[in-house]
């Protein structure tokens, strides 16, 4: 059924829509993986393995596209597959032009998918120059390298994709095959074609046999070894092999191809002959396992993966979250009402309900979250392109991939990071000669970092470039007529950085192709503010610049540690709390006139919360009550008056009047109806870093 013609019955449309969504999701994952593998290939990491991966992906995309009736896509991916197949037979790595072409292919495929997503159909035509280039390249590669390792050509005959010419496996070998598979070995047939013009067919067969045996265990061969030796075969040899190494398929093909007069060698992963034969109407996911030059060692088939996923609208998850929040609150109320009960059963049920509510809460929360890795993975390709475009060697590294971000903000954060990374590459990192002159490593380093403070998620983009040129920024602001020179000269560096976020500001000496397109940091700030977050910047001349995005965490219920500061209840997010300790005088040291706490070989600054918030010190008689909090890779010890215990609380985010209070991350109501303040540990850490005496009177 052609799902695009719109004549299908309603029910079927729903079905096809569902398949289309699955197709789009799976295809865009594959394209992402394709880009990743191509980057690794370009960097020279285990080239053979990457090529195999690239080939597998192109092949899967081709099969999936054909199944959906996207013939242009299927044709294009087929051409990519040809190129990759030809590369596999080459001794030399692909040229930069070919790699660029493959990168461009990933882009075109991505754009095509976007079109499909928007319109439900593929574009009428894909870029003609790109298609022509693909064909030229594959022909050139195939011509240059003969056919040492050709790829089965199934362009016109998808139905015959499964090589039904694979010999039957004799019964006596079945057991060995099963055992080898169970042991996780690579099992499959090596098909070797000898040049028909070969004069010494017997000798060649023996050499091939030997070459194959050198890599894998030969379980069976067709024709039988004796007939091979006698040259008693047409021109094809089959070896059923088992090998332990993951890259065995690769090595087998190489080994067999190394024998003179071998015109073709390929590896077919073991496929149970009982399986249904593949046909164009088959689900796309079955095709990767049904043939393929390389054994699929990945284990899980795409179908299996697909069945474990469910796509649900964000609205439903939100509703679920709200009910969970309500459940937690009501449970806490019940607990308060029954606080004085002596009935053991009531207590035990209450506890149990508490645990269930918490587990439910966490599960529902996690539904909305995705790991920062998903975000970061999109950038290596961009940095690579920037590096070439700007003629600057660049390195990208990242930390905190496990940090969870709300799914709904991912796209906006991505856009913001695109700007910041471009900015870092273009303006932040110095030109090569300058870096050399400064004695810095040639490659400019861009670091992405994500971490959570419980109430906020922070995402940082840091470069090791020249830092923000405060003078240049001031000059620009004066030129723009925003400031008079006197006012500009009086501005602190921090105030000067603020100018960067003004619409229409650009410090680039030359309007470059990369970030001189009139979208700047103002766009970044706007995007982040629309998410309820903010952006700030730190910079050090000659050392680099750090942009930090603060995003509110959308968690409605938090696990917190309740403490008393003065007589008010405060809540510290448990995600930040490392430990609550009693500190005696012997646990403390003084650094620059301030107390620090020795905690697991680190010296942790102490913030006396009572003193800071109420001018009523919490640190008086020993032992002091300290709660050690972690913020990113730093720690801070919050001194409080009393530690009360853990609880689940509903978080009311700040709005209006209270939004700007730095230490206040949110508000919550306790079981007795009183209000507790949720503390942002990061603000406390910032406070700890301000030298004493700077803040007006608070420390005096």
């Amino acid at each position: 059924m052609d799902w695009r013609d719109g004549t299908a019955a309603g029910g079927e449309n729903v079905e096809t829509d569902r398949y289309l969504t699955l197709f789009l999701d799976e295809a865009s994952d594959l394209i992402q993986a394709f880009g990743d593998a191509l980057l690794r290939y370009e960097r020279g990491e285990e080239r053979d393995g990457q090529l195999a991966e690239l080939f597998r992906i192109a092949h899967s995309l081709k099969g999936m596209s054909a199944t959906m009736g996207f013939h242009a896509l299927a044709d294009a991916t087929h051409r990519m597959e040809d190129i990759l197949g030809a590369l596999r037979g080459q001794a030399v790595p692909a040229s930069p032009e070919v790699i660029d072409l493959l990168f461009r292919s990933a882009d075109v495929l991505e754009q095509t998918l976007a079109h499909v997503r928007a319109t439900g159909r593929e574009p009428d035509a894909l870029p003609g120059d790109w298609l022509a280039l693909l064909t030229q390249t594959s022909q050139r590669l195939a011509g240059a390298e003969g056919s040492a390792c050709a790829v089965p050509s199934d362009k016109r005959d998808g139905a015959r994709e499964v090589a039904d010419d694979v010999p039957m496996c004799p019964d006596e070998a079945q057991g060995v095959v099963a055992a080898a598979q169970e042991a996780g070995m690579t099992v499959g047939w090596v098909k070797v074609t000898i040049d028909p013009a070969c004069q010494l067919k017997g000798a060649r067969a023996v050499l091939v046999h030997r070459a194959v045996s050198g890599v894998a265990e030969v379980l069976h061969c067709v024709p039988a070894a004796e007939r091979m030796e006698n040259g008693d075969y047409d021109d094809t040899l089959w070896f059923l092999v088992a090998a332990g190494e993951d890259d065995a398929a690769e090595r087998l093909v190489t080994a067999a191809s190394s024998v003179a007069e071998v015109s073709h060698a390929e590896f077919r992963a073991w496929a149970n002959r009982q399986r249904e034969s593949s046909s164009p109407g088959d689900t796309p996911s079955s095709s990767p396992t049904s043939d393929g030059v390389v054994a699929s060692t990945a284990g899980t088939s795409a179908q299996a993966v697909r069945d474990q996923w469910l796509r649900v609208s964000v609205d439903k998850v939100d509703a679920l979250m709200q009910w969970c929040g309500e459940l937690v609150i009501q449970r806490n109320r019940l607990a308060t009402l029954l606080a004085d009960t002596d009935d053991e059963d009531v207590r035990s049920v209450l506890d149990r309900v508490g645990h269930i509510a918490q587990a439910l809460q966490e599960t529902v929360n996690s539904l909305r979250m995705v790991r920062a890795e998903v975000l970061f993975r999109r950038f290596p390709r961009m940095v690579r392109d920037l590096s070439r475009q700007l003629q600057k060697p660049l390195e990208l590294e990242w930390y905190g991939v496990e940090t969870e971000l709300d799914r709904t903000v991912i796209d906006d954060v991505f856009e913001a990071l695109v700007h910041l990374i471009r900015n870092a590459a273009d303006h932040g990192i110095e030109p090569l000669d300058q870096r050399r002159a400064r004695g810095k490593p040639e490659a400019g380093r861009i670091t992405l970092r994500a971490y959570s403070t419980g109430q906020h998620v922070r995402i940082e983009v840091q470069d090791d470039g020249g830092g923000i040129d405060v003078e240049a920024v001031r000059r620009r602001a004066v030129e723009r007529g925003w400031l008079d020179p006197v006012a500009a000269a009086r501005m602190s560096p921090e105030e000067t950085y603020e100018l960067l976020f003004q619409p229409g500001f650009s410090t680039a000496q030359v309007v470059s192709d990369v970030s001189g397109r009139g979208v700047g940091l103002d766009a970044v700030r706007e995007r982040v503010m629309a998410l309820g977050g903010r952006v700030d910047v730190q910079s050090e001349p000659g050392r680099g610049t750090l942009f930090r995005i603060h995003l509110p965490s959308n968690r409605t219920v938090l696990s917190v540690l309740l403490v008393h500061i003065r007589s008010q209840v405060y809540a510290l997010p448990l995600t930040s709390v490392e430990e609550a300790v009693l500190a005696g005088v012997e646990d403390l040291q003084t650094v620059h006139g301030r107390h620090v706490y020795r905690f697991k070989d680190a010296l942790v600054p102490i913030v006396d919360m009572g003193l800071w918030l109420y001018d009523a010190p919490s640190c008086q008689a020993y032992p002091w009550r300290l709660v050690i909090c972690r913020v990113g890779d730093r720690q801070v010890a919050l001194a409080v008056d009393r530690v009360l215990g853990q609880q689940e609380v509903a978080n009311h985010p700040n709005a209006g009047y209270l939004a700007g209070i730095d230490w206040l991350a949110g508000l919550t109501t306790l079981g007795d109806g009183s209000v507790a303040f949720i503390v942002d540990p990061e603000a406390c850490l910032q406070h700890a870093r301000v030298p004493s005496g700077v803040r007006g009177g608070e420390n005096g």
Partner: protein
Amino acid sequence: MMEGLPVVVFDLGTERYGVPVEQVLAVEWVPPITPIPHTLPFIVGVVSLRGSILPVIDLRVRFGFPRSGDSQQMMVVRTGEVEVGLIVDAVQDVIRIDPDAVEPPPALAGGIEAAYLRGVLQTEHGVLVLLNLDRVLTDAEQRQVAEVQRRASGVS
């Protein structure tokens, strides 16, 4: 008088003020208030009210009048997206006024700048000053934000 614009009338110091009734969500006896450190004096704290948590502003302090310790009432008002509790001396009544009878405010009425006023009007109970609540609250918010920034940047 059945026609006209309904207005909630309340006392603050020696004057009588009014705000449109649709901006007033509730009138309460002042519940226990939790003070918040590092806020300007007119933000007296937060209260928990029927499941939501509201910041509370002492309108006397906001306008620079002396604080009053007497029995006080809280009006829950809404401007834009924000709900706020306003502490006033006493909420009197809801009356209907004739919008055409409202005169532009003098530069200073009852010690409050004209910018925060919509106008004044003679009623049978005396002069009624109509507050521009949106303006009062937005300014308060901006001042608090500025205060936070002042503290955060370490400038004293």
